[in-house]
């Protein structure tokens, strides 16, 4: 049977209507690239926030007279807290070593005794907590036997806390807008590229083609446009990634990367755009063109 013909029609549709196809592919490329950028930027920002929020450090300085028992009570408390993901004990000697590393001078040579207190560096995962939880924890620790002082960057914490949600919601809004805009644009450009061929549909009908027969090549063409668009979008995104890393590499702690989720996502979306866009458009037009 002539299924081969339908597939060939789909391919040659691309070649025949070069310009409308080109515009459809371009639109898919641009839409997917913009969405990819939104996604990359958004995840990067969320990642940065989470990095800071999950590794939030609180320093618990011990008083000179802290006993083993005090320390075991403190560690017990740290172990039992949901907030705390880990902690390190920094003894007076460790602190002295760090001092030497940082300032290049042995503290024992400067002073007779070591005035640096022992401390705990506590890492807290603040992603699911707000700054009040941290403050509470810090206060509780501060009141414990053997604790001299608790230090943490309260300002940073409050800032993070405040904007983390804003970034998430804002990112979500932008993603929805870009997705919506893409769907509208791609759908309508594919429609326009089919519109340019309504003469073909009319004549096909006159010679006895069923609607299915007419539709299939358009859908195959749409899928091809989607795949090509996705391919170009991946190239574009790769360019953006390389460019951004080059320009912003010195500011950011981690580089942008093209990971598999984004590659898979772009290809899947491209396919969907092409398939759904062409299927919907052709269905719409075919019912408008007279039998």
């Amino acid at each position, binding site marked *: 049977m002539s299924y081969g013909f339908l597939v060939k029609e789909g391919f040659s549709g691309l070649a025949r*209507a070069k310009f409308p196809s080109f515009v459809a592919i371009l639109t898919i490329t641009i839409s997917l690239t913009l969405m990819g950028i939104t996604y990359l930027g958004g995840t990067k920002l969320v990642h940065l926030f989470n990095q800071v929020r999950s590794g939030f450090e609180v320093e618990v300085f011990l008083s000179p007279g802290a006993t083993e028992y005090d320390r075991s009570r403190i560690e017990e408390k740290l172990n039992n807290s949901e907030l705390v993901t880990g902690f390190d004990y920094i003894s007076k000697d460790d602190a002295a070593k760090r001092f030497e590393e940082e300032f290049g001078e042995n503290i024992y040579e400067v002073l007779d005794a070591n005035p640096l207190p022992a401390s705990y560096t506590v890492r807290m995962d603040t992603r699911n907590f707000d700054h009040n939880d941290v403050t509470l924890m810090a206060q509780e620790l501060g009141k414990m036997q053997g604790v001299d002082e608790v230090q943490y960057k309260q300002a940073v914490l409050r800032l993070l806390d405040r904007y983390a949600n804003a970034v998430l919601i804002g990112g979500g809004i932008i993603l929805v807008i870009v997705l919506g805009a893409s769907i509208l644009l791609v759908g309508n450009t594919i429609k326009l590229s089919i519109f340019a061929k309504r003469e073909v549909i009319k*004549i096909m009908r006159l010679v*006895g*083609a*069923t*609607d299915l027969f007419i539709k299939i090549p358009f859908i195959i063409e749409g899928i091809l446009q989607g795949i090509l668009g996705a391919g170009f979008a991946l190239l574009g995104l790769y360019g953006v990634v390389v460019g951004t890393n080059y320009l912003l590499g010195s500011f950011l702690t981690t580089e942008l990367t093209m990971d598999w989720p984004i590659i898979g996502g772009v290809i899947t979306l491209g396919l969907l755009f092409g398939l759904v866009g062409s299927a919907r458009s052709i269905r719409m037009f075919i019912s408008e063109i007279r*039998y």
Partner: protein
Amino acid sequence: MIYFYNVSKEFGRGAGVYDLNFNIHKGEFVCIVGPSGAGKSTILKLIYMDEKPTDGKVVVDNFDSSMLQKDGIPYLRRRVGMIFQDFQLLRDRNVYDNVALALRVMRVRRKKIKKRVLQALNSVGLGHRAQYYPQELSGGEQQRVSVARAIVKEPIVLLADEPTGNLDPQVAREILALLRRINEQGTAVVMATHNYNLIKNTPYRRIRIEEGRVVDT
């Protein structure tokens, strides 16, 4: 095989065809004649259901215009060959593919398609133009491509709308002879024409239309 029962098709602004009643039998050759704008093309359009009657009904084979759903129309059109007054060729593919399309929509096998298309093109004298695009053809050549596409599917009825309007008398006679041969093989032919000279020596039934009404049958 084709039945017009009290058929009217009004086009809003006065023009149209009115109260048509006639039958065309299997294997018959009928000429529809009448002046420009009389309604000849409209009658043919009613047969291949490009227009729906505003009144009455048209029955072709076992397709009834008053019952037929949209998705039944393609099956009717596969049995009816149509030569259009304005050719209706696809500009984006060559002559061969234009003619082959009529068979491809019916899912005829590839090899068979090739044989039949070339045969049809040769019978209208266009074997040498298979690779041309419609816009590279003369008016008469385009008209003959339209003829080839209509006959290639071996229809049970052939509707020919002014099939010789762009042809010189020599080629016109050849096309008429071709239609006659097809008719002799059992295909009914309905031809709309104003070329009285061409048909004046033929014995075929004539349906005469004037201002949308049958005046002589």
